[in-house]
């Protein structure tokens, strides 16, 4: 767990006069699950958005290995092997579960304009993708996602989050960023998700989990980062974090 996959140093992001992220430094190592917790408005999602390129940082450097990460999200995702989920599930509701997950398996087919064009022609000639379908079916079974041909509009919030996680996992990412994956989830789904995460970190993937469910996150992660008002106020082992003064101050507003 020594190789640093992702590092942020001195990253800041403001919206007008509001500083959402202030001089944040963070490291994610290979084979590590890192928890990022904090109250609403702490800057957790903004930080994830800045890392993946959905938002542009005002200052600071984000590196994947030793390479500085810049450009649009698609370039960053290709360079860094990112996969992510969103705070509010991003699914095409009038498409099936299978279709929403499928995109995780095909980025290599769309890595250049010529490959996109070739993919259009090959798609018209051979639309079926049985090998990808099998992978989706296996993953869905692991995450307890049933009936892949349902429309996503028919899913509960917890199921929608599972579909997002499945999409991200199908990508076989090097760095996985999960934004509130456990919110609204049923216990079987959460259990399947934890099992899947444990399995991919064994392969050397780094996982950043942002969630409000401190108990689940603390039991799952190797290290816990606590944010408040855009700043990192604690970075350490989960047991130490749970017992820390900073945790009490942030969540209960007192140092006692």
């Amino acid at each position: 767990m020594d190789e640093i996959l992702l590092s942020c140093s001195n990253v800041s992001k403001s919206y007008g006069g509001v500083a959402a992220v202030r001089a944040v430094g963070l490291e994610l190592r290979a084979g590590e699950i890192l928890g990022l917790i904090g109250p609403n408005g702490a800057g957790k999602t903004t930080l994830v958005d800045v890392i993946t390129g959905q938002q542009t940082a005002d200052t600071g450097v984000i590196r994947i290995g030793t390479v500085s990460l810049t450009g649009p999200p698609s370039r960053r995702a290709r360079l860094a092997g990112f996969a992510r989920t969103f705070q509010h599930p991003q699914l095409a509701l009038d498409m099936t579960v299978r279709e929403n997950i499928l995109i995780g398996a095909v980025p290599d087919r769309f890595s250049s304009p010529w490959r996109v064009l070739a993919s259009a022609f090959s798609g018209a000639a051979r639309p079926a993708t049985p090998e990808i379908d099998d992978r989706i079916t296996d993953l869905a079974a692991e995450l307890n996602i049933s009936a892949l041909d349902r429309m996503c509009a028919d899913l509960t919030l917890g199921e929608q989050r599972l579909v997002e996680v499945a999409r991200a996992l199908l990508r076989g990412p090097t760095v996985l960023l999960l934004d509130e994956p456990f919110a609204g989830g049923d216990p079987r789904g959460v259990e399947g998700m934890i099992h899947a995460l444990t399995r991919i970190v064994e392969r050397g993937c780094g996982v950043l989990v942002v969630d409000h469910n401190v108990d689940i996150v603390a039991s799952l992660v190797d290290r816990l980062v606590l944010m408040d008002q855009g700043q990192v106020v604690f970075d350490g082992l989960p047991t130490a974090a749970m017992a820390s003064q900073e945790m009490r101050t942030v969540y209960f507003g007192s140092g006692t």
Partner: protein
Amino acid sequence: MTTRTTPVAARGTSPLARHRWAVEAVAAAVFALALVAYGSGASFRQDYVVLICTYSLLALGMYIPYIMSGSLSLAYNAYLGIGAYACGLISTRAGWSSLWGVPIGIVLSAAIAVVLGLATRRLTGFYLAGVTLLFAVAFQVFLLDRVSLTGGPVGMPVRRPHAFGYTFTRYDIMIGAVVLVWIVGLLLSRLRQSPFGVVVRLRKDVPQVVESSGISSGTIGVVSLAVGAAIGSVGGSLFGMMGGVAQPESFGLHIIFLAIFMPLLGGQRSPWGAVIGAVLVVVFTFELHILSDAGTLFFAIAILLVLRFAPLGLLGLGTPLLRLLTRLRMGRTPGGEGS
């Protein structure tokens, strides 16, 4: 890892779903044969059939960027015009068969669509529509003003296509047009279900997901526009070869405004909806003499009714019926499969 399960697509689906492509090809072929049969009568009917095919190719061309990808480009009259004028120029200036104009039109239209797509890469919705509409207007002005190249308002002749010493008749062109629509419709239907089609459709609703998956949403949009323009150009070539002339008035903005509503009327979840919409447009605006000049008005009313009562278009009405029939045949209760 859990035990491998049978793919849902192959689990308990109806024979109709399992042989989907064959069923679709046969159903479309029956429709194509009916069109050919209709066109085998009086000569003017051949013009109607080719007009239906031209509008169908226009609507199919718009289907990928507009319905699937959510990019409303309004430059399709230009792509139709490029197809027709390419055939005219190659046959009258170079003395070649006008068939050569088809690939030239395809390449030119796709290239212009790429340039327009790159120039409008950051635009969506109304702004994209506005800029491409300006291009459509500029193209028509170009056709009218560049008399030495385009023949100006009177246009230019498009010679009858020939190959290997055989000159194609109007009937031949009509058959070719129907076969082309059949092939393009089938290919687009397959394309829609392929990974490319899935990514293009996701781009419409959740572009940030496409981007965060490592796929450039802009590139997907530009390629969609290019493929659509190429298909539209083929429609223009057919129209020019059938009519024997390429004129600016044939490629006015009115075509675009009709084309926008074709898939909405026919159905958005299948390219065949665009074809059905094209057929209805021609029937409403040209064929129904009983409606006299009010055909376009009736078309507008039909659009309103469809949007109100069948938001997925006429073809969309069939899906719930098919599902109900399948469930009844399989003895399942509604919702049983998805629960």
